[in-house]
C-alpha cells in the first residue's frame, strides 16, 4: 500500500531525491512497460474449473501468452486505463529492494491476480454480476464494464477503478522482479541479506539480522551510516 501512496504522490507532482521501494506489491509493468511478461505456473487449478473468458485464464498452459487483459488491448484508451506505465516517469533516484521468493509478493499476490481479477460480486451466486473485461467486444467503450445485481451495466472509465478491480496483470510484482527497469535505477536483491521468503524481514527480524540491509538503505538515501 505504501508504494501505491508514494507512487501516486510522485505522479501528482511530489519530488524526491531518493525513493526506496521495499517489497513493492505493485505490478512491475507500472514502472516499466518493457518488463518481462510472466504468468505464474500453478497446477491443479485448471482441470476442475470452467473459466469464463472474462477471467482471462488463457489456457490449460498458464504460461501461454494472454491476450485477454486491458494491458494488451489494441485500443489506446482502454490500454491506458490499465497498469502499463502508470509509474514509469517517477522522478528521483528510485531503488527497488526486491525479494523474488517473498511469499506475499510472489505466490500469494499471483494467486489473487489469477483467481479474483476481474472482481465478481458475491451475489448473485452464479457470478453474473461484477467487473468484466471483454477483449473480443467490437465496441471498445464497453470492454471494461460493471454489471449490477439487477442486470444493469455501466462502463468503467476510471484508471484507478480499472486497476483495482478490472485488470488482470501479465507481470509479476515489482517486489518480486529484479529485472524491472523504467523508472527503477537500481535493483537490490534482499535475498543476499538472507531474507529467504519472508515478506517483511526488515521490520520483523532482529536488528542484528538486518543490519546490512539498513546500512545499504542509508547508502542509497545518500546518508553516511555509522552502524
Amino acid at each position, binding site marked *: 500500500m505504501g508504494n501505491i501512496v508514494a507512487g501516486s504522490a510522485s505522479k501528482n507532482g511530489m519530488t524526491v531525491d531518493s525513493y526506496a521501494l521495499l517489497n513493492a506489491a505493485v505490478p512491475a509493468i507500472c514502472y516499466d512497460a518493457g518488463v518481462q511478461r510472466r504468468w505464474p505456473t*500453478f497446477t491443479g487449478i485448471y482441470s476442475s474449473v470452467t473459466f*469464463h473468458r472474462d477471467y482471462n485464464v488463457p489456457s490449460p498452459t498458464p504460461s501461454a501468452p494472454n491476450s485477454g487483459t486491458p494491458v494488451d488491448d489494441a485500443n489506446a484508451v482502454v490500454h491506458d486505463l490499465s497498469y502499463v506505465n502508470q509509474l514509469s516517469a517517477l*522522478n528521483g533516484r528510485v531503488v527497488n529492494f526486491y525479494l523474488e521468493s517473498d511469499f506475499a509478493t510472489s*505466490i500469494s499476490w499471483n494467486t489473487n491476480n489469477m483467481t479474483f481479477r476481474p472482481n465478481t460480486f458475491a451475489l448473485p451466486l452464479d457470478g453474473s454480476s461484477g467487473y468484466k473485461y471483454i477483449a473480443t467486444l467490437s465496441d471498445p467503450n464497453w470492454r471494461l464494464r460493471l454489471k449490477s445485481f439487477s442486470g444493469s451495466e455501466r462502463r468503467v472509465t476510471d484508471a484507478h477503478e480499472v486497476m483495482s478491480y478490472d485488470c488482470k496483470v501479465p507481470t509479476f510484482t515489482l517486489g518480486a522482479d529484479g529485472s524491472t527497469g523504467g523508472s527503477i535505477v537500481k535493483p537490490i536483491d534482499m535475498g543476499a541479506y538472507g531474507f529467504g521468503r519472508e515478506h517483511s524481514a526488515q521490520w520483523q527480524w532482529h536488528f542484528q539480522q538486518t543490519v546490512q540491509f539498513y546500512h545499504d538503505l542509508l547508502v542509497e538515501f545518500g546518508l553516511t551510516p555509522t552502524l
Partner: protein
Amino acid sequence: MKKRIAWIIAVLLLFVALLMFWRRVPDQPEGGETISKAKEDPTAWKSPSANSPPSDSGQPVGNQLPERAQPPVEARRVFQSIFNAQLSLYGKVVDQDGRPIAGVHVSIGVADKPWDSGSSHQRTTGPDGMFEITGVKGAGIFVEVEKEGYYAGKESRRLLQSGEMPAKDAPAVWKLYRKGALESLSHHDNTWTDMPMNGTPVEYDFNTKQFVGAGQGQLRAEVKVEGSMQQRFSWWYRISVVSGGMARRAHEFDFVAPESGFVEVLEGRISATDGEWRGAFNGDYFIRLPSGTFGRVAFAVSRGRDSFSFRIDHAAINPTGSRNLEYDPKSVPPFVPATQSR
C-alpha cells in the same frame, strides 16, 4: 411466537444482504476519464431491457466459455486448491564446474498458506549432491542452500511454483561457488558524485579514491541529457578506462580477470521512446588500468531528481598486478562508510 421470530430473522437477513449488495456496487468516481467523445454520460447505468449495452455473450475465446463469469465461490475454491497442490521436489547442488557437492545444508520452505511464509523443512545433500522433499502440499517451494567454503549467490536460492516441480530424473539445480585463493586488495565502496549532464567527463582516481576532473583519473564517465528530466527523456552515456580496458564479469563470483577481450569504451543511447527505457546504466566489469594492474568495479550512472550521479558501488584493485581479484573479507571492515564528492 417462534414463527414470528423466524420471520423477523428472515427479514433482517434479507435487509443485511441488500445492504451488502449496495455497498459492493461502487459509484463511478468523479472526474474519471471518458472513453468516448459522445455526449452521453459514459458512466451511466444501462438497463438490460432498454438501450442495452453490447452483449458479452459472444463467441468462445480459446477454451474459455462465454456463458457466465466464474462464481465467487468457485474462485475461492480455486484459490484454496492452489495452496493444496501435491508437491514433490528433487534437487541437486553443484559447484561452478558442475560437480555435485555433498553435505550441503538445504533450507526448504513450502508455500502452503497464503498469509505467511509457510512450513519449514531441512535436508542435507547426499554424495551425489541430491536432495528431495515429497508428500507436501502448497503453491510452491523455496529452497536455499549453503555450505562452509562456498559462496552462496543468486543461484543458491530459488522459488519454484507448483507447475515448475522437476521430475526425479531431471532434478532442479542449485549452484554454489567454491572459494579460491584470497588476495589483499585495495577497496573502494559506496562513493559517488553528481555529474554534468552536457557530456563533460568526470573521472575516478583509484589512487586517491576521489572523483577528479578529466585527465586526472582512470575510470571516466560522461552523460548527456536531451531535454527536460520531468518525464521520460533521451540520454546518452559513455564509460571508459583511459588507456586501459573493461571486460564484463560473468557472475558475482567471477574473480579472475581475463587476459584479453577488454574494450576501452562502453556507450549507449537511451531514447525517450524506447520501450525498455531506463534512467540508469549499471555495470559490473573487470578493468585493466594503464599501470597494468587489474581490478573489478561495480558502478552506475543514474538519474536523480534533477541530476545524474556517477557511483562506485564497489571496486577492488589488486596492486600486485595479479589477475586474481578474490579478496579476503576478513581484511575489510564489515561496513565501509559512504562518502560523497560534490
